[in-house]
C-alpha cells in the first residue's frame, strides 16, 4: 500500500457520502408515495451497504471480483448491478393503513432529517481531508 491515491487518502467518507445521497433519494421516494395505495416503504441497510462497498473498493486490495467474460455478448457484472437500489429492504409498518400503504410520514421525515445531517457530517469530513491534502501540497 505504498501508492498515493485519493481512495486511500479519503478513507470511507467518499463511499459514505455516495451512500447517503442514494439514501436521500430512497427516503424522498417514500415521502413522495405517501398517498399511493399499496406502496411499500423501503430503506437502505446502511451498515451492510457501506461495508460491502468498502470491501469491493480497489483500496482494500481485493482482486477484481467481476465475472470473466469469454464472449462479447456476455453481460459484465458491473453494468448489470445497480448496487444500492437492488439491496433495499422493506420497512416494518407500525400502523399499516387500509389501502396497503406502509409509509409513515413522520418516521420518514425523521429519517430524512437524520440522513441530511449525516450527509453534511460526511461532507465535512471529506472537506477536511481535501483541505489537509491541499496544505500538504502547498507545504505550509
Amino acid at each position, binding site marked *: 500500500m505504498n501508492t498515493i491515491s485519493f481512495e486511500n487518502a479519503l478513507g470511507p467518507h467518499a463511499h459514505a*457520502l*455516495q451512500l447517503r*445521497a*442514494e439514501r*436521500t*433519494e*430512497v427516503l*424522498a*421516494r417514500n*415521502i*413522495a*408515495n*405517501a*398517498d*399511493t*395505495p399499496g*406502496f411499500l416503504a423501503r430503506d437502505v441497510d446502511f451498515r451492510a451497504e457501506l461495508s460491502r462497498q468498502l470491501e469491493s473498493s480497489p483500496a482494500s486490495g481485493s482482486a477484481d471480483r467481476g465475472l470473466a467474460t469469454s464472449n462479447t455478448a456476455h*453481460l459484465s457484472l458491473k*453494468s*448489470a*448491478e*445497480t448496487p444500492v*437500489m*437492488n439491496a433495499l429492504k422493506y420497512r416494518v409498518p407500525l400502523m399499516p393503513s387500509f389501502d396497503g400503504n406502509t409509509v409513515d*410520514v413522520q418516521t420518514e*421525515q425523521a429519517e*430524512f432529517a437524520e440522513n*441530511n445531517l449525516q*450527509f*453534511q457530517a460526511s*461532507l465535512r469530513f*471529506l*472537506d477536511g481531508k*481535501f*483541505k489537509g491534502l*491541499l496544505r500538504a501540497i502547498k507545504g505550509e
Partner: protein
Amino acid sequence: MALLDVFDVSGSAMAAQSVRLNTTASNLANAQSVAPNPQDTYRAQHPIFAEQLAATSMDESPAPAGGVRVVDLVESEAPLNLRYEPHHPYADDEGYVAYPNVSVVEEMSNMISASRSFQLNVEVMNTARTLAESVLSLGK
C-alpha cells in the same frame, strides 16, 4: 446522480398532488350543479395514484423511477343526492332534483391532505438542493 433524482421524484409527487387538488376544486365548485337529465349530473372525481416503476436493470440508462403518477381519474359511484324541490325547473315527476354526489367533508379533508403532502415534497426538494449546493462547494 442520486441527489438530482430527488428532484424528479419529488416533482412527480407535487404534480400528482396538484392534480388531486384540482379535482377537489372541481368537485367543490360543482357541488351544486344540476343538469336537466340526472344522467348528465356532475359526479365527484378522484385521481388514482401509482408508483412509477423502475426500468429493468438490463437497460443501460434506467429512467429515474420511484415517483408518483396519476393512473386514472375515476367518477364516484355513490348515489346522487336527491332533494325535494318541486318548483325547480329540473325537478322530476315526483318533485326531486338530482344534485351531484360530492361529499363536501370528504373534499375538504382531501384538500388538506393534498396540500400537506405538497408542502412536504417542496421541503424535501429544498433539502436536496441544499445538499447538492454544499457538495458543489466541497474543498473551498
